[in-house]
C-alpha cells in the first residue's frame, strides 16, 4: 500500500498493548515526547484476551494524571484496529499528528530545552574563565 504518515511519529513494536506499562508512557513524556498513542487490536480481538483493555484502562488513568500535571491528557491516546488495516493505521497517525499540532509542543519538552540552554551557557562561561 505504501501509505504515507508523518515522519515525526516513531514506532515502537511491542507484542501486545497490554505490555505497555504506565511507566513507559510517563518516561516518554518525561523525555520530551509531544504525544504518545497506543495502537492495539480491536476490542474483543486480543490474542491474550485482556491486553488491549488493560492498555485502555492505563491510558485513561494516565490521561487524568497528565491533565493534573498541566501536560494535557489529550496528548495520550489509544486506538484500536485490525492488524491488516493499513489505511486505518495511516488515518490514526494523521489524526494524532493533527491533535499534537493543535496542542502545540509539550511543556516538558520546552522546559527541557531551557534546561539544556542554561547548562550549555554555564559550560561556555566556565570555558571562557578557563
Amino acid at each position, binding site marked *: 500500500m505504501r501509505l504515507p504518515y508523518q515522519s515525526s511519529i516513531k514506532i515502537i513494536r511491542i507484542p501486545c498493548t497490554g505490555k505497555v506499562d504506565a511507566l513507559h508512557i510517563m518516561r516518554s*513524556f518525561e523525555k520530551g515526547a509531544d504525544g504518545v498513542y497506543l495502537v492495539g487490536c480491536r476490542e474483543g480481538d486480543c490474542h491474550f484476551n485482556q491486553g488491549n483493555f488493560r492498555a485502555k484502562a492505563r491510558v485513561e488513568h494516565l490521561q487524568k494524571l497528565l491533565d493534573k500535571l498541566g501536560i494535557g491528557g489529550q496528548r495520550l491516546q489509544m486506538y484500536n484496529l485490525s492488524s491488516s488495516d493499513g489505511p486505518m493505521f495511516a488515518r490514526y497517525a494523521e489524526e494524532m499528528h493533527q491533535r499534537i499540532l493543535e496542542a502545540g509542543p509539550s511543556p*516538558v519538552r520546552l522546559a527541557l530545552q531551557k534546561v539544556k540552554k542554561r547548562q550549555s551557557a554555564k559550560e561556555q562561561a566556565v570555558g571562557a574563565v578557563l
Partner: protein
Amino acid sequence: MIVADKKPIEEIIDYVKDHQSILVLGCNECVTVCEAGGKKEVGLLASALRMHFLQQGREVNIGERTLERQCDHEYLEEIRNNVDNYEAVVSLACGVGVQFTAEKYQNLPVYPGVNTLFMGANEMRGVWSERCQGCGQCLLAHSGGICPVSRCAKRILNGPCGGSTAGKCEISKELPCGWQLIIDRLKALGRMDDYEKISPIKNWSTERAGGPRKVVREDLKL
C-alpha cells in the same frame, strides 16, 4: 495485607513544593501488592514530580529507592548513607513505614505518598476489601470464619440488625450483610447451633480503644 491507595498528585506536590531534593521511597511489601507504593509506583511518582518541577523551571533532584520493608530497622538502615543527599522523603509505604522512617531519620521531613486504609484481601484484580480490624481478640472460631467486627457495619456480635435486607446491609445495596454471610456459612458447615450461642460482651480494651498497642515476646527478645 495492609491496603493503601495513592494520594492525589496535587496533594503530594503541595507537601514537597519547597524542597530542592526529594527521595521517593517505596516499600516492597503490602503496598507493592496493592499497587500503591512499590517500585513501579515510585517510578511513576518520581516521573510526575520531575515533570511538574521542570515545567516550573526548577531543577529539583528526585531520587528513587524501594526498600524491602520500611517497618524494619535493618532495611531502613540501607538508606542511611545517602539519605543526607535529600531535603525530604516521600514515603509510599503504609502509615507504619512513614512513621518508622520519620523516627529513624529525625532531621528529615517525611511525607506520606499513600492513604493507608485497612487490612484486607485481594478479591480480584484491582479490588481489595476489608477483612480485619485488628481488634486483638479474634472471634472467627465462633462465626464460621467470617468476622462480625470487620464485615458488619455496626460491629454487632449476636446476629443481624433490622437493617439487613435480602442479604444486603442498610448502608449500601452493594454491601453484603456480614451476619447474613455468617449465617449462610454456619448453615453450610452444619453449625447453626453456634449461632444460637450468645456472645458475651466483648472486651474492646484490646482494640484501639485501649490506646496504642504493643506485642512483647520475651522468648524472641535479644
